[in-house]
């Protein structure tokens, strides 16, 4: 499987909320950096925790790949847009059933034997808060209609 195919498979599992399948694509010691959440650690712990929370809170999640390329070191770089409707508290934001979309960039480093060994994700958490009705960064749990 090429790095491109692996990335498409990874993102398809994100859309479907299939976290175990995502972990099945990674090496046992794969790392994750969710930059805006300042979460850096094992994919099996930090990555899985975030993806499970996303799947639970946004059950109608859609992932649209806007750009995908593979660099010479076999890293797949994807610009995606996620969108869906909040159905439960998410990253400490109370649920108001708001629909949101959010542009993100993901980098997946792929080993020669076609496993993902590192995941790095960037997005603007301020955009997510704005779309979910958060007004102040020191009061994330307080939202407004």
């Amino acid at each position, binding site marked *: 499987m090429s790095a*491109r195919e692996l990335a498409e498979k990874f993102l398809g599992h994100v859309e479907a909320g299939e976290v175990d399948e995502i972990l099945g694509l990674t090496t046992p010691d794969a790392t994750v950096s969710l930059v805006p959440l300042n979460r850096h650690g094992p994919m099996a712990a930090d990555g899985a925790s975030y993806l499970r929370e996303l799947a639970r809170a946004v059950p109608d999640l859609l992932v649209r790949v806007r750009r995908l390329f593979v*660099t010479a070191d076999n890293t797949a770089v994807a610009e995606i847009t996620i969108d869906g409707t909040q159905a439960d508290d998410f990253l400490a934001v109370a649920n108001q059933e708001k629909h949101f979309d959010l542009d993100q960039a993901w980098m997946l480093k792929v080993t020669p034997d076609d496993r993902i060994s590192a995941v790095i994700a960037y997005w603007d958490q301020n955009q997510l808060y704005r779309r979910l009705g958060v007004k102040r960064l020191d009061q994330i749990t307080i939202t407004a209609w």
Partner: protein
Amino acid sequence: MTTVALRDGTGTTPREESAETTVRAFFAAYRAHDVERMVDLCAEDAGFRYVPFEVWSRQRVLHGEGKVCTVGKVIWTTLIDAFPDLTNAVTSLRADGDGNVAAEAGIGGTQAKDFGIIACAGGRYELPHLFLFHVSGAGLIDDIVAYWDNVAWKKQLGCLEVD
């Protein structure tokens, strides 16, 4: 899941090296606050998109999106004016054979003027960024996209408003 507008490439090529050289020159010009040089490294109609850059008003939302020669140049100039010691450090750089380059860079500076809704309190910030470039066969940047987290930026500068 839908997939659109894909570019792909693998293997080390002169195009890859040329693209990396252009991007390194871009960040060097940024460190030197040489906005004209930054623009000169871009094609005349180069696209520009700073994804987190959104200004919400009652009537509409303004996005940091357009052309390097207009929107990009204004944002860079305004940033350097507000953060006179603005600097950057490239932490990773990877390219493909089709001119795509992904660069992670730490950008930081000390605030000397208000910037958007961030009132100046003299604070300093350091923030990881991801830049995605496309460099043409002629060695000019023809597209720039950047991602960062405004929550971390604003918190470091003492601004706690989402909008």
